[in-house]
């Protein structure tokens, strides 16, 4: 019980879950370990219709980071409900659906459909994907647009809505306050930083999409700082992410103010990473003399904080 975390709509047996887009719909990882060990699973983004996404190359490596420009490839919300959710429903873990779109109508449609499915416990509103031409980032960098979209999606959803924030903004706290005021039940952060790599032999960007989203250990200091700021600015819980690879990275996010943590890129380096972190957590809490993991939530800004 020292790992159990209750968040709006989510009863997490532990605060560890794979991040959206880094775990597909769980099928491949289910061959490697029992997904029921996970606190939750944030599934790949859904859009209204199926999308092929961007041309390849879609990934490029950077110093302790990677750029991706997948471009929201997914089979579309109906196919996801019909072919992906039944498989996931067999596991004892909380499924969070990632909602994307190009227009607010599309977001609302996807949110309505997904939230109606009993397998889905909460929605993650992806207003921050840097890899799609329209939608995504615009919503994620303007507090007014973000709030308006949050309001529409909240109205359409029968499940709690977590809004996923983009780090590519001047003031992350303005964004967080705007979506909180618009009714968001929680915040997930951070999505990727916009970056680019250029091939030295051709002079051309490596990614076919030219720019992509930077993830991995390289961005962790930015993610920690933003969680630290937002945790002090809002009263809704935060699921933190960005560069988590180890149990100590998880604790850093909790100290910064997160109530749960998602693991993205590290799943590519080590597909067993979420399971390994979950197994390592109790021992590490013992070493540090921590009873319940949330006892230290927000310790970086306040020595005494109450649970979740």
């Amino acid at each position, binding site marked *: 019980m020292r790992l159990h975390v209750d968040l709006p709509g989510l009863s997490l047996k532990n605060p560890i879950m794979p991040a959206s*887009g*880094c*775990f*597909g719909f769980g*099928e*491949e*990882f289910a*061959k*490697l370990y029992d997904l029921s060990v996970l606190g939750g699973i944030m599934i*790949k983004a859904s859009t209204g219709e*199926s999308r*092929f*996404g961007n041309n*390849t*190359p*879609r*990934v*490029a*490596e950077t110093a*302790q*980071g*990677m750029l*991706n420009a*997948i471009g929201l*490839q997914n089979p579309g919300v109906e196919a996801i409900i019909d072919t992906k959710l039944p498989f996931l429903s067999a596991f004892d873990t909380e499924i969070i659906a990632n909602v994307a779109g190009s227009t607010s109508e599309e977001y609302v449609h996807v949110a309505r459909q997904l939230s109606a499915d009993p397998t889905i416990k909460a929605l993650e509103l992806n207003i921050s994907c840097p890899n799609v031409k329209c939608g995504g980032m615009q919503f994620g960098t303007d507090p007014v647009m973000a709030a308006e979209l949050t309001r529409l999606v909240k109205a359409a959803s029968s499940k709690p809505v977590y809004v996923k924030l983009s780090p590519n903004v001047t003031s992350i706290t303005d964004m967080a306050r705007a979506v909180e005021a618009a009714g968001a039940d929680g915040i997930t952060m951070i999505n990727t930083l916009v970056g680019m790599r250029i091939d030295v032999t051709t002079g051309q960007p490596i990614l076919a999409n030219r720019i992509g989203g930077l993830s*991995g*250990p390289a961005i962790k200091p930015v993610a920690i700082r933003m969680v630290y700021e937002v945790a002090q600015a809002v009263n809704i819980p935060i699921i933190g992410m960005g560069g988590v690879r180890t149990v100590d990275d998880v604790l850093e996010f909790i100290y910064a103010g997160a109530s749960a943590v998602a693991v993205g*890129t590290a*799943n*590519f*380096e*080590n*597909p*067993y990473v979420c399971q390994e972190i979950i197994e390592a957590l109790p021992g590490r809490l013992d070493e540090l003399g921590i009873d319940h993991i949330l006892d230290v939530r927000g310790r970086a800004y306040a020595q005494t904080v109450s649970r979740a």
Partner: protein
Amino acid sequence: MRQMATVLSNRPVAKGAMEMKVSVGAGEIAPGTFFHVKTSQLLRRPLSVANVDGNVVTFLYKVIGAGTTDLAARKAGDKLDVLGPLGNGFPLDQTGKRVVLVGGGIGIPPLYYTRRMLAARGIETVAILGFDTKESIFYEDAFRELGETIVTTVDGSYGEQGFVTGPLERIQADVLFSCGPEPMLKAVAASHIPERYISIENRMGCGIGACFACVCQAPGGYVKVCSDGPVFQAEEVTL
């Protein structure tokens, strides 16, 4: 699936190319599949199975960037974190047919193990191996031991001058297995051999089908190179 292999040997076999042998755990390994190898870098590096002998797997790799440079520094006894075997290989079920193997540069490694497995089934093969120049040639003798082998070099410093497509034109075969750079794959995919299988090398993230990094357009939508491939029938993919 993920295991700590032990490096048994690691030696240069040509200019800029290395051969590494590692011992892995038990389990069937099909020709044309690959391992996703952890180096000093963040993302794993996909490397084809160039040979299997008992529990010893051979990789043949070109030293390109930071990942393969790190691999080249490994010594016998070192541990290597590998994930695999991954993907689907070449269909070996070709009894009674003649198979032409067409490889270019670092696309050649998977064809060696494939040829050995075809030979074990008594299937007749001919190999066309394309290199840049004389110094970059590796495994020529090993290939020759298994049957007719034609070597081309772009600069004509050894074998036939030019690309693999030159000799391919005069070859009679029922099936083609190929791996190499994309322009070469495009050319062989359009060749006169009736059945054509190509192995595609795309930049990868997860290597297991979860991230959609490695997709390739296909008439029916798309395929994932890592989990649907890396071997496809030429008609299955749009290069």
